[in-house]
């Protein structure tokens, strides 16, 4: 290992990639919330290879100059490995005097943060937190401070295994899986593909900066986000009634949000104003996120510990994240001891998290911890419901293909039309198969029978072409999914009425907008035709498709240098960018990789209606 991490300051100016030298374990959370983390010494882990590096993200974070080619040179590779290929010296190592070469030891400590996790027996956050991750540090560029953390850097004392079995584990102990402190390259690849697609589609998410590969498919997955704090970072201290640490966490978080301009600059009148502003921001973010998850069919296991989500409603930990092709509203992930929430239950869980933040605000303001139930009628929960509904309406108008300013006009003056269309839309979206609930590989599900993307994509084209409403039989033919059985598609009087209602209310929206804007209805429908064909693309990625794609990548990866994997990811995310206003990207994939991409596309197509 070079000396960069030992003499950070000396090295700056002598090296090409100086920004990496600042990622050395230093993190403001350590000093501002001393009770919120456990610090570990760490040593360089030899034998690592860079399997992936996100050049675009690195440029955004200021780690690389904008002009840097998407090529990994030996110096950059060395920097990445020296910075991120590390393993903590944990309690087991210390107690057993595990020998470490002195020159391999990093000069500064790295923190594992404490947060609430429901799989811990303690259930109050005293023993839980980052079980196999550490925080590498922060970098600041273009007015934004980024958090960087790595998963797979060794077993900490905050892992469930350590606390359930009441012993410290050696990193890599084969007798336990999750608790051994390591992670797999495939986990990083899943996160990479999924998060880059969601990020391209403007969903908040952690992102993968680098994947370091070690032997036997193990690796370190380096992730970044402008703020990696989760609700669970607050909830542990709330559960314990630890006012001092909870206040430190809240102050730390608020400062970062203001520093990053993620919130409008605020001059808080007093503590009450400050902490209720925090609760309000959480209510806003979580109502938006819950509505978006529901409308994009994203299954994100929200639960009372607030562990699987970031404070701004961003996605973190892709282990159980899925995106469904249809509204499979009864899918539940089987986590051995219990089943997860369903996609429809996410809203209530999100609201519950908001309620907890109201409790936190009150606790921090008054110094007294009142029961959670005493906040069940708080105004911020009303705000949550109101904002959730507003987001649902906006999301639906976006799906139809209306531009932002058109959405505003419709929401302002024609809310009743929007509500009526949403009702008809929801009728079809939530229709379930008569097959009932059944087991799948990782849980249980009940199939949705209609594909709303198909009807939203085809309806404006068909209506423009025919200049007439679709007969019920044709409507069903377009909207039916591969999951639908004949009995699911029966044209009952109610269904026929709903088919007519869907088309009437859709056209009423178009008509209303045409009147307000003085635009020809045909032109609006034509615009919707174009935009809806992108937004409701036939082949949209699902959780299953990501898993299969990662299996393919794993097969070809021995011959795939990091920069080529980066290019493949970039091409794939461009193809999955459903923004109708995007500019088409240049095709830069080498010819030999076209087959791999074709393979990806056909996987996405085959899995497009699944889970």
């Amino acid at each position, binding site marked *: 290992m070079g000396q960069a991490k030992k003499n950070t300051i000396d090295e700056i100016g002598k090296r090409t990639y100086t920004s990496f030298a600042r990622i050395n374990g230093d993190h403001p959370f350590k000093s501002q919330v001393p009770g919120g983390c456990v610090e570990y010494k760490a040593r360089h882990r030899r034998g690592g290879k860079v399997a992936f590096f996100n050049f675009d993200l690195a440029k955004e974070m200021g780690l690389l100059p904008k002009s840097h080619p998407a090529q990994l040179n030996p110096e950059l590779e060395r920097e990445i490995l020296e910075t991120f290929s590390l393993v903590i010296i944990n309690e087991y190592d210390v107690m057993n005097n595990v020998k470490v070469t002195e020159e391999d030891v990093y000069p500064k400590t790295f923190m594992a943060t404490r947060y609430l996790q429901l799989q811990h027996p303690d259930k109050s956050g005293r023993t839980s937190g980052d079980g196999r991750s550490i925080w590498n540090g922060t970098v600041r560029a273009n007015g934004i401070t980024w958090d960087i953390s790595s998963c797979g850097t060794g077993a900490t004392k905050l892992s469930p295994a350590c606390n359930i079995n009441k012993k410290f584990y050696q990193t890599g102990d084969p007798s336990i899986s999750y608790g051994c402190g390591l992670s797999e390259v495939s986990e990083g690849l899943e996160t990479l593909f999924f998060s880059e697609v969601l990020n391209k589609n403007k969903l908040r998410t952690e992102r993968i900066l680098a994947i370091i590969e070690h032997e036997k498919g193990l690796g370190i997955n380096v992730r970044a986000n402008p703020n990696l704090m989760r609700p669970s970072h607050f909830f542990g201290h709330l559960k314990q009634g630890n006012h001092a640490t909870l206040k430190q966490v809240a102050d730390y978080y608020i400062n970062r949000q203001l520093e990053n301009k993620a919130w409008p600059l605020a001059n808080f009148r007093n503590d009450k104003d400050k902490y209720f502003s925090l609760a309000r921001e959480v209510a806003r973010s979580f109502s938006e996120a819950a509505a978006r998850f529901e409308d994009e069919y994203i299954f994100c296991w929200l639960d009372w510990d607030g562990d699987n989500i970031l404070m701004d409603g961003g996605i973190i930990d892709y282990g159980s994240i899925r995106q469904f092709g249809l509204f499979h509203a009864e899918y539940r992930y089987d986590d051995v001891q219990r089943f997860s929430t369903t996609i429809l239950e996410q809203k209530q869980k999100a609201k519950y998290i908001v309620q907890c933040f109201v409790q936190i605000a009150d606790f921090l303001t008054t110094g007294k911890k009142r029961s959670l139930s005493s906040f069940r009628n708080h105004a911020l929960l009303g705000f949550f419901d109101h904002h959730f509904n507003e987001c649902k309406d906006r999301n639906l108008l976006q799906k139809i293909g209306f531009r932002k300013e058109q959405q505003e006009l419709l929401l302002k003056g024609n809310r009743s039309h929007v509500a009526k269309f949403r009702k008809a839309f929801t009728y079809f979206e939530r229709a379930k198969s008569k097959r009932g609930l059944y087991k799948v590989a990782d849980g249980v599900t009940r199939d949705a029978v209609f594909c709303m993307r198909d009807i939203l994509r085809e309806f404006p084209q068909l209506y*423009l072409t025919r200049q007439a409403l679709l007969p019920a039989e044709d409507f069903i033919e377009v909207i039916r999914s591969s999951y639908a059985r004949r009995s699911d598609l029966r044209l009952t009087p109610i269904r026929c009425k709903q088919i007519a209602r869907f088309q009437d209310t859709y056209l009423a929206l178009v008509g209303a907008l045409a009147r307000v804007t003085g635009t020809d209805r045909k032109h609006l429908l034509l615009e919707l035709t174009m935009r809806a*064909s*992108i937004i409701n*693309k036939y082949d949209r990625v699902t959780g299953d498709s990501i898993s299969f794609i990662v299996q393919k990548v794993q097969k070809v990866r021995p011959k795939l240098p990091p920069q080529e994997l980066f290019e493949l990811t970039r091409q794939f995310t461009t193809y999955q960018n459903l923004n*109708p206003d995007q500019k*088409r990207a240049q095709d830069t994939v080498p010819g030999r990789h076209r087959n791999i991409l074709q393979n990806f596309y056909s996987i996405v197509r085959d899995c497009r209606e699944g889970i």
Partner: protein
Amino acid sequence: MKLVLFSGGGDGENLDLDRAFVEVLNKRNPVVTFIPSSSYLSEQEFKVFVKHYSKYRISRFIHFPIDVPFDRIMFTEVMRSDAIHLAGGNTFYFLRSLRRAKLLNELRRFVERGGVLTGLSAGAILMTSDIDMAGYPDFDRDENSVGLKNLSSLGLVDFAFFPHFRNSTRYDTVFKKYSKVKKKLIYACPDGAGIVINGPELRFIGKTFAFSEGHKFVIN
């Protein structure tokens, strides 16, 4: 039979061909179907296509990717449309997709019924009897990345068509040779040029070159 073969080119380059297309179409408020060579980012191409032909007061369009499954309703509407446009792209992939979707005969029938079929670059090559021209010459060809062996295509015209032609000795040499050996008539068009077939009439728009029995001719 109503066909328009576009070589290629940007928005303003095909003005005369576009006018000829609208003339051949000869219908108020027609329905035009856009078939992309591949569904990959085809929604963007469709957007460009719609914006372009909206200038000709066409307002009814269908986007019909064929390398993804499609429903019967859309297919029926496509076959009822007044014009179908076969877009540019990889000719081998496009032909394979048309064949897999069983659309070659459907398109022939569409043309027989009086529908206007237009094609740009790869789309134009597909109207000929085979897509040999897509793999020729060596220095300017589509990659047969799908390993297509059966290159026979729609066979709507009895000549070969070469798009994006550049008037140079290099091309002259290979096309003269090809026309002699294969005994085929080749029409080679630079971007902005093309061929319009309206019943018995065959019209060349823009500068077109013909290669026949080892000789080169300049048309227009």
